[in-house]
Each structure stands twice: as structure tokens, then as C-alpha cells.
């Protein structure tokens, strides 16, 4: 690791005072499961690390009649174990899939959402865009994006929690740059595809940070997450999908379907949503929704298999949300 200075503020205000407006100057440290490895490999080389580990106001889960406020420094384990997750099965399932126990105990909600891409070109110091996309296009892109990959960025969004949170219509609370500044935005708006190496995978300015995730009351919606993984080991999924649906009289009235690991951002599938709304959820309609989702896929040279996986993930997330058998191996 490059030497850096360390600060451990106690309040959100102190955090903002320590963050620099210059990209790359400061890094925000949460659980450490991603950032410490990135710093050891000199992929990330901040001059200052601001640890959020002693900011107690970021560690609470508060529920009222309309929403649940989850602090960014709540650990994944504590969120999944919280009784409030009875109402949000997609969250509990997504976290339950994450190996290992130490990752769940150490990793935080905010850190999970802001982790950097797993793209091996990025992790090989060839840049977030991997030499303006060329390294991905010409190289081994088996784990890269199958949607939204026509720009320079072709990595796949790594968060395993984001698809569930987006399906559940979660918002994030962003603080800064000045003390008192506060922005609430839908989580899907928080992410954006970077167009240059100067940008990141989200819209956060370097002197802003995520303080909270806000989950609306489910109002009768049912939800589920489904991950396709290679084997049973502690690997990232190849493709993931989450669905949240409002079903009355056996008919889907509203749906939100988001995929992970398939695009440079978590990917909301408008096509899948349109395919399922107005119909009951059964094997045929869920399969048709999966088919609709991948109708706009644009796979790279080595990842066409992900198209089939994405189709199946959407189908099974819908079936699981409806409490139906998903088929396949459990």
C-alpha cells in the first residue's frame, strides 16, 4: 500500500470536512473487504483514507410506517438478520447468497453498493474502462456486460445487493459536499456508466458519501432474488436478478425487475416488466418475461452464455417472488 493519512471522524459533518473535492485524493473506508485489497494492489492510491467505522449515526436501522432507513455502515449480516427483512425477502436472499460469513459480518450496506467492479482488466491496473474498452473487446470478456456495453465501459456492475434494492424501489441519501447538503435519489439513478477514466461507476462526487438506504413500505408487494453462480464456492454470481411485484386477483399490477452482473450499472429490464404486468405469474409468463429481458442483449465475443443465464435468472426471480417452484438445482 502507498502511505496515506488516516482520519476516523465521529460525525457525518466531520466526514464531509475531511473529504477532498479532488477525485482519487480521499477514499472512504467502510468494512474494508474491497478497498484494502485495491489499495494493497496499488489500484487505488489515496493520499487520505477517511474511515466511517466510528460514525455511529450510520449504523442504525429505523423503521416507521412508510419507510425503513438503513444506515450505510450497517453490516450485511445485521441487515439480513433484522426482523424488518421479513418484508423484503429479496434482500435477505441476496445477502444469504453472499459467501462468506466474514464478508457478511465485515461488509457494510454502503460499501457493498460502492464496491469497485470485479473486471479483471480493471484489477490488472488497465483502468476502469480497460484501455477505452479495447482490452475487453479483444480480450477474455466472459464475465463482462451483455447489456449497455456499446460505450467504452464494458465491465459488469458488481453489487449483489443493488438489484434487490432497485427492485424494491430503494433510494439513497447522499450527504455533501457542504455540511447540510443532502440529496435523495433512486438507487438506479445513483449508478451511471462512466464515459471516461475520470468518472466512477456512480454519480457521487469525491466529497460526497452515501449515508443511508431508504426502503419504501412494500405495501403488499412480494419480492425475490436469484443468483446464477458457478459451483458452490465463494464466487461472485455470473448473473443475478431480483423482482418485486404487486399481485392482486392473481394478476401482476406492478413490477420492478433488476439484473446484476450484466451491464456497467444494475440493469432495470423495462422489457421484462412490460411482459409480465397484466398477467398472472406462471412458468410460461415468467419465461416470456425472461425472453423479453434478453431481447435487447448485445453479448461480447466470449459471453453469449450470459444471455441464457439472464433469461433464466429473470424467470426464476419472478417464480420465486410468487412462491412457485423455480426448477433447476436449489
Amino acid at each position, binding site marked *: *500500500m*502507498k*502511505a*496515506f*493519512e*488516516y*482520519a*476516523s*471522524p*465521529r460525525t457525518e459533518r*466531520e466526514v464531509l*470536512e*475531511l473529504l477532498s473535492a479532488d477525485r482519487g485524493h480521499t477514499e472512504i*473506508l467502510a*468494512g*474494508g*473487504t*474491497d478497498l*484494502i*485489497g485495491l*489499495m*494493497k*494492489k496499488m489500484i487505488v492510491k489515496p493520499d*487520505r*483514507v477517511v*474511515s466511517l*467505522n*466510528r460514525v455511529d449515526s450510520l449504523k442504525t436501522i429505523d423503521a416507521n410506517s412508510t419507510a425503513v432507513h438503513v444506515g450505510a455502515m450497517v*453490516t450485511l*449480516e445485521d441487515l439480513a438478520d433484522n426482523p424488518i427483512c421479513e418484508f423484503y425477502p429479496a434482500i435477505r436472499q441476496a445477502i444469504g447468497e453472499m*459467501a*462468506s*460469513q*466474514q*464478508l457478511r*459480518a*465485515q461488509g457494510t450496506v454502503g460499501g457493498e453498493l460502492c464496491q469497485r467492479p470485479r473486471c479483471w482488466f480493471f484489477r490488472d491496473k488497465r483502468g476502469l474502462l480497460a484501455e477505452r474498452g479495447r482490452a475487453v473487446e479483444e480480450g477474455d470478456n466472459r464475465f463482462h456486460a451483455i447489456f449497455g456495453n456499446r460505450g467504452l465501459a464494458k465491465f459488469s456492475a458488481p453489487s449483489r445487493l443493488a438489484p434487490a434494492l432497485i427492485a424494491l424501489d430503494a433510494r439513497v441519501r447522499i450527504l455533501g459536499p457542504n455540511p447540510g447538503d443532502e440529496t435523495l435519489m433512486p438507487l438506479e439513478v445513483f449508478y451511471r456508466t462512466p464515459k471516461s477514466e475520470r468518472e466512477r461507476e456512480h454519480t457521487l462526487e469525491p466529497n460526497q458519501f452515501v449515508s443511508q438506504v431508504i426502503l419504501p413500505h412494500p405495501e403488499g408487494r412480494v419480492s425475490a432474488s436469484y443468483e446464477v453462480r458457478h459451483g*458452490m*464456492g*465463494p464466487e461472485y454470481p455470473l448473473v443475478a436478478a431480483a423482482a418485486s411485484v404487486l399481485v392482486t386477483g392473481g394478476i401482476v399490477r406492478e413490477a420492478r425487475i433488476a439484473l446484476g452482473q450484466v451491464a456497467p450499472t444494475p440493469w432495470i429490464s423495462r422489457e421484462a416488466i412490460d411482459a409480465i404486468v397484466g398477467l398472472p405469474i406462471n412458468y410460461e409468463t415468467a419465461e416470456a418475461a425472461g425472453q423479453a429481458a434478453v431481447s435487447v442483449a448485445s453479448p461480447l465475443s466470449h459471453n453469449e452464455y450470459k444471455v441464457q443465464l439472464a433469461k433464466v435468472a429473470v424467470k426464476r426471480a419472478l417464480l420465486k417472488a410468487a412462491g412457485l417452484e423455480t426448477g433447476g438445482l436449489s
Partner: protein
Amino acid sequence: MSKPDETGRGRSGVSRRAFLKGSGAAAAATAMTGAPGLEAEAQGAEPVAGLTTITLTVNGTPHKVEVEPRTTLLEALRMGLNLTGAKPISVDGASGGSLVLVDDKPTSANTVLAMDMVGKKIVTVESLISGDRVDAVPMAFVHHDASQCGFCTPGFIIAVKAFLAKNPKATEAEIRAGLNGNLCRCGTYANIIPAVLEVVKGGGNG
């Protein structure tokens, strides 16, 4: 070619070790002037840099240890406190080899900063043996011959301690899934699983 003498002294007559110590002291002094009033505990909003003395509570005992901001807990334990049970197998925590308990939670010591650990309760694998008393988990590993080269074993034992603390009546399938974050290159899983099942049966997770 002259053979370097055993004290490691070069021509200047200053040993390499003494020199390193000296430069460290200089860095520490700089840090102290940069952040007065912190009492070198590295726990405030004032940024700290360079060598700083912090107190880590390990296995129930507070220890003073000199660290930099970039020192991981694993480096502080191994190099600063000579507790070499937790292992530097992977740089990013992927192997589980550096597991310790921090406030009872399984934590990869190589992916947390030592300075973030001030005030927390750190338990390492060394605490599981005191005098003649051996904790049930390492004892079961011995009974079942659950290690080969032994490098992953300390991390595995902490993983089992943490897992069983939360799942004292775990089934074999739950054990396999629950220990997913620890890797053994020798492939001793076949003996680790029966060892854990024995601890479950005996109800003796320390």
C-alpha cells in the same frame, strides 16, 4: 568479498535494524507534531500519518503497538505482537486465512486497518490454548486429522468458532455452506466437516 558480520553492521558501524528504528522514530515524531493532543490513539477527525502508537486489546490484554495508517490488523498482530496464528494467505481476504474475531464477529485481519481496531475486542487463534486446556474446536481438528500443511488451519478454526457461535446446532449441509469463505489447498475439507460435526454433537464450542 567480505562476509557481512552477524550483527548486520555495515561500514558505517550502524546496524540496519538500528537505522530503521531511528527513521521510524523520526516519522513518529513528525506524526505527533502533526496531530497534537491525540495521545497517539489515532481515533479522531484529525488526520494522522506516519508511525503512531496505538493500543489493541488482543485476547483480553491491551497491547501497545506501533503502526502506520496503512498497517493492517494482520501485520500488527504478526509483526508487532508476534501473534503469528492468523496467516497472510491472500491479499484481499479471499482465503479466510487471516480470520480473527473482532467484537465476536469473524473478520479478515488482512482487510482491516489496525487503527480502525482501537477499542475493539480482538480474539486470535492463540487464545484457544491456555496451559493444558485446549478448546473443543482445535481438539476436534486433532482428533479428525483435519489439517495437512496446516497453513489454513488457524483461519479455519476461527471460522468454525464464529460459525458455531451463531449456528450451534448446524447440520452438515449448513456447515459446508457456512464455512464457504475458507479455502484449503490440501483439500482437508473431508476431515474438517466431521471435526465440526463432532463439536456440534459434543455441544462444546468453548
